[in-house]
């Protein structure tokens, strides 16, 4: 017979939660850096760069994350590149998040009035200070609600990492459920943990969205 749900089981779930948070953090940081590059490439004056990035985004937005994980973990193994599971997963999530964040931020950059770019150029500002000091601070502010929304998606998306043998929160829940024969209870706990993680973020997203629309003229 299985065990009953006790502190040991809860501890196991918390271990899984650690991986979930860590994975989401890696994906978000990696995706933030990659996404910035993607957004800048998509708004650059180089046609080739814009097309190449559009292709990359199309692939990663148009295929399931599950498949991306598969291809990167097993696919790289097939060509003789054996990565530790966490690294493969980190790469897959970073590529995935870069595509989505890049597209969100591109939209925000393009939503800025043309006059902001022109004023910066007319003052003689070069590309880097133009972007860093004038364009990006405004664009990221506009994009903040959508960015937080994507982060919530990402946290839940980390459950797919179980496919390559990763024991994150959802997978940990499945294991505990198998041991305790109490799936309803276990998954209620797992769901509550996800909720406790995501709900405050969603609230925060709504809060900044309200604030931005209040100050928007």
């Amino acid at each position, binding site marked *: 017979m299985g065990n009953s749900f006790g502190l040991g089981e809860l501890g196991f779930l918390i271990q899984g939660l650690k991986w979930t948070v860590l994975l989401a953090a890696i994906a978000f940081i990696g995706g933030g850096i990659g996404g910035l590059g993607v957004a800048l490439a998509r708004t650059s004056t180089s046609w080739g760069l814009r097309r190449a990035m559009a292709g990359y985004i199309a692939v990663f937005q148009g295929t399931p994350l599950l498949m991306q994980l598969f291809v990167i973990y097993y696919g790289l193994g097939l060509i003789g590149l054996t990565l530790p599971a966490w690294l493969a997963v980190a790469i897959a999530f970073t590529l995935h998040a870069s595509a989505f964040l890049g597209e969100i931020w591109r939209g925000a950059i393009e939503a800025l009035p043309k006059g902001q770019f022109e004023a910066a150029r007319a003052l*003689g500002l070069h590309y880097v200070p133009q972007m860093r000091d004038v364009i990006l601070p405004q664009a990221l502010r506009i994009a903040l609600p959508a960015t937080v929304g994507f982060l919530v998606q990402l946290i839940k998306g980390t459950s797919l990492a179980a496919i390559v043998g990763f024991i994150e929160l959802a997978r940990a829940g499945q294991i505990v459920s198998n041991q305790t024969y109490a799936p309803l209870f276990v998954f209620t706990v797992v769901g509550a943990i996800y909720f406790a993680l995501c709900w405050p973020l969603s609230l925060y997203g709504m809060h900044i969205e309200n604030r931005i629309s209040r100050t928007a003229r």
Partner: protein
Amino acid sequence: MQDTSVMRPTVPAAPAGDPLIVMEAVNKWYGTYHALRDVNLSVGRGEKIVLCGPSGSGKSTLIRCINQLETIKSGSITVDGTRLDDSSRSVDAVRSEVGMVFQSFNLFPHMTVLQNCTLAPMRVRGIAAAQAEATARRYLERVRIAEHAHKYPAQLSGGQQQRVAIARALCMEPKVMLFDEPTSALDPEMVKEVLDTMVGLARDGMTMVCVTHEMGFARQVADRVIFMAEGEILEQADPETFFRSPRHPRARSFLGEILAHH
């Protein structure tokens, strides 16, 4: 190094009367639309020029070519001895010497008035923060808005914002100021404060090229009024002559329409 800016003689102070801006046979197209047709224009140091004409006549396009917000198809533009070519070097050199004021102000909304004014001097000229701030306060004083230095643009009226925009451009200590319909987006009661600022600037000897429909301003400060239509310069004269007896029929009908409103 193969660069035209290296080959040009580097004369620090050109003699008075030597033009600051020279445009020769400039043509500009937007797709199939011929926006500027063989435009020749030279602007002397200290000269104040008012460009007028019906909408779509190419006045804004013309001044936007001077600092390369628009690129030209043929012809040449030289600003203070630097010929604008495709090199980013010549564009940078020209932009840092040319100030521009836009119809829609285009202040950076996430920065205070003071930060708006210190950004370019620090980033482009490499001036230290304290010095940039001192310069900014001096110009904000000059446009009579120093007490709002700590505020954000959204907290100011349109007229105040436009005066900040003028101060921001002046902080780069440009050799020429371009004004692209600076009062067109303003409520009527705010037009005067901006025009007064511009008149003051003109009195101090700034070289100015202004696209504006403010004919009172043109009479008061312009050395030369230039009338454009359909991308061509049709007439240029001192304001007295232009307003009293415009020669070109299109200039006459344009003036008739404009003055009918005043």
